[in-house]
């Protein structure tokens, strides 16, 4: 056991839940896309959501920062709490929610602005920095945390779109963490990236989890196995199984989970 302990950082199962979902259902018009989902996302852990196309994992991800609100005909029921507070509470500011719960998308989408302004945008609209030097520091810290500072520090005023794909994605991560979120949602963040850029981002995720809670949707079983401490398997809108990543990939409880991860269907 101790040899594994040297390398593994398994889910303790005892970290306090950052996000709690209870009986969450999502309908797109008549289509029942997510069914009665109960799921806890634990603090300072990476939780991977896996499952075949159309299983509801991205739908669930978008519930956590209420991105589903902007989709026509989308109806969310059930309870979702962030640090014990209902995110659908009328008193809650949804813009503030989306600062606390950041999101990184599949295709890197830096603003058509300079690298500096990409990162500074969020803090600016939230009035986080009072002086230019405070803002400079926020930008530098965010870029460092996203592993992009060395490559970007001499071109901060150049357009973000001039960076490579992998760099753009790290810029998007820097942008998300600049407003000091508690949770970072990632929807297939590496799908559009080459293997080296992917490896860099996975390494980054490993570091980020010390300060943030991360939920990642991924199509790659190997990626889920590499980066996450807990894995949740979705199928046809149902949460089939959730557990410590190591257990899910060595000895899953449900046949459907085993069928999917071993490539017997999907």
């Amino acid at each position, binding site marked *: 056991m101790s040899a594994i302990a040297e390398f593994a950082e398994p889910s303790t199962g005892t970290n306090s839940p950052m996000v709690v979902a209870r009986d969450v259902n999502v309908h797109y018009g008549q289509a029942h896309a997510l069914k009665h989902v109960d799921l806890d996302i634990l603090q300072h852990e990476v939780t991977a959501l896996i499952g075949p196309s159309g299983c509801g994992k991205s739908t669930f991800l978008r519930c956590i920062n209420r991105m589903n609100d902007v989709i026509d005909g989308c109806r969310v029921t059930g309870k979702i709490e962030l640090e014990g507070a209902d995110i659908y509470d009328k008193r809650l500011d949804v813009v503030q929610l989306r600062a606390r719960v950041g999101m990184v998308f599949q295709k890197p989408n830096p603003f058509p602005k300079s690298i500096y302004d990409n990162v500074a945008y969020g803090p600016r609209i939230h009035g986080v920095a009072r002086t230019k030097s405070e803002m400079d520091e926020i930008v530098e810290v965010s870029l460092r945390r996203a592993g992009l500072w060395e490559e970007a520090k001499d071109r901060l005023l150049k357009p973000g779109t001039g960076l490579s794909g992998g760099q753009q994605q790290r810029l998007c991560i820097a942008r998300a963490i600049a407003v000091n979120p508690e949770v970072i949602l990632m929807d297939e963040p590496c799908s559009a990236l080459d293997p080296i850029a992917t490896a860099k981002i996975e390494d980054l995720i490993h570091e980020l989890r010390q300060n943030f809670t991360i939920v990642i949707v991924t199509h790659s*079983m*190997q990626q889920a*196995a590499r980066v996450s401490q807990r894995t949740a398997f979705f199928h046809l809108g149902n949460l089939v199984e959730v557990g410590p990543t190591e257990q899910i*990939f*060595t*000895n*899953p409880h449900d*046949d*459907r*989970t*085993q*069928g999917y*991860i*071993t*490539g*017997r*269907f*999907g």
Partner: protein
Amino acid sequence: MTQEHHEHISSVYDSELEKLGKLLAQMGGLAETQLDAAMDAVVRRDGEAALAIKDKDRDIDALEKETEALVLRMLALRQPVANDLRLVVSTLKTASDLERVGDYAKNIAKRASVLAQLPAAPSTAVIGRLGRLVQQLLKDVLDAYLQRDMAKATAVWEADAEVDALYTAVFRELLTYMMEDARNITACTHLLFIAKNLERIGDHSTNIAETLRFMISGQPFEERRPKDDASNYAIVEPKGG
């Protein structure tokens, strides 16, 4: 296990897994045959048989290398998980166990050819019983493995206590013969090694049973296996003065 999701989407993956099964079946069959031939050589005092058995052991070694290579390839290219991972890893372990069984059978045959050149040792029915038990357990565990029969494997796992008890009895009996008449010492020493090799083959059958349990359930056996090998502590006093 649901039946609908038996086959991988990649049919080549399934072929590779099937090949692993075939390689193990071949190795198992050879190991059984080798052990049968070796025990036969002991009983019939056949000095010639050893050469053929030694040669054939090379086939088992070659199969082990082939199995290892395929396992390595599958780990690298398929990144198996869950039951596939346990199956691939179990194949590697079992191939290693079977290769050792082959080696022990070869060693028994070598000693049989030495025994054949010596005057007949005092007969010991117990070593014959030990041999037959170990042969049966090997056959049973290999059947269990191929049929994924956990009940059969558990029976083999439990029977190791009987193997240990018989080995202890052989040990004591041989010591007695050696003390009775020093002219027995050479032959009895070789018989002792043969008995030890048989006991080790029994251990490898137990290993295979444990590996099968891990492969099927992902868990090891719960209880500590009952151990009845007292030979480490056996003291036999000479009779009379």
